[in-house]
């Protein structure tokens, strides 16, 4: 099972890279919020867009918690397909979010990145949880 021994640290590092970038965006979301608004904006518009972005980022952090719980509890640590999916999706999310942060993309792009790169691995993780704890399938 030598492939697994390189999949596990790669998966962990890509998840942590994605997490670090999400926390960085949370911390410095001012310029991204301003990119969503028209040139003349009121304080209420700013706060509404800010709240939407905060909700999106918090949902991302919650989905991270689900995936890390599955990883560290051993449910999906040695599952090769979930590992590969996770590496691919989190690596592309890291690159996309780097562009999002530095190029100051607008807010609607974030929902796409969230859907593809956070919701998908979390759903597969929940499926694996149900498979292992519900149907007693072996977490190969």
């Amino acid at each position, binding site marked *: 099972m030598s492939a697994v021994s390189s999949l596990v640290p790669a998966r962990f590092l890509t998840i*942590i890279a994605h997490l670090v970038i999400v926390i960085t965006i949370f911390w410095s979301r001012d310029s991204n919020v301003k990119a969503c608004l028209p040139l003349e904006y009121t304080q209420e518009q700013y706060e509404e867009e800010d709240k939407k972005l905060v909700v999106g980022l918090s949902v991302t952090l919650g989905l991270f918690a689900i995936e890390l719980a599955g990883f560290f509890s051993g449910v999906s640590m040695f599952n090769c397909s979930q590992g590969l999916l996770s590496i691919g999706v989190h690596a592309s999310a890291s690159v996309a979010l780097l562009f999002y942060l530095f190029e100051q993309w607008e807010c609607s792009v974030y929902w796409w990145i969230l859907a593809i790169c956070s919701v998908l691995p979390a759903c597969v993780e929940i499926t694996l949880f149900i498979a292992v704890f519900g149907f007693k399938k072996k977490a190969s």
Partner: protein
Amino acid sequence: WVKCLKHTILSSTPLQILLHLNKWYFAAFYLAEILMFIYKGILLPYPTDNLILDVVLLVLFLGLETLRIFYAEKGDLCERPLSSSMSVLVLFPCTALCVYYLLLQTFVLRLEFILNTILLVFYCAEFVLSVLALSMFSRSRVY
């Protein structure tokens, strides 16, 4: 001749997993820190003494962390309390260095703050698991 008794495995799997991931995370963290120091050294107005202090402490961090992880892994696998307790002792200066890079260094970048916080979480988890494993080893030592 020696009669072989049945031996239950006392080494801690969660600790081994955490140490293995910590090795990889520290490698990535160290690379990131070196790049960030190059960036900071060029861009920010550093007094020379502070820059030299930070770089020397970074080299010290590498040495201490490698030592700590090696002793923790080997001590846990061979179930020897001496190596494990040495790794717990070395954990304290490593934590001090981590807090230095988190709060007390001359210029702290946001990225450094986040990376050092994650490293601190690793250290807390490893401390708890190491102390538990150490108590298991020392309790059941057969003389």
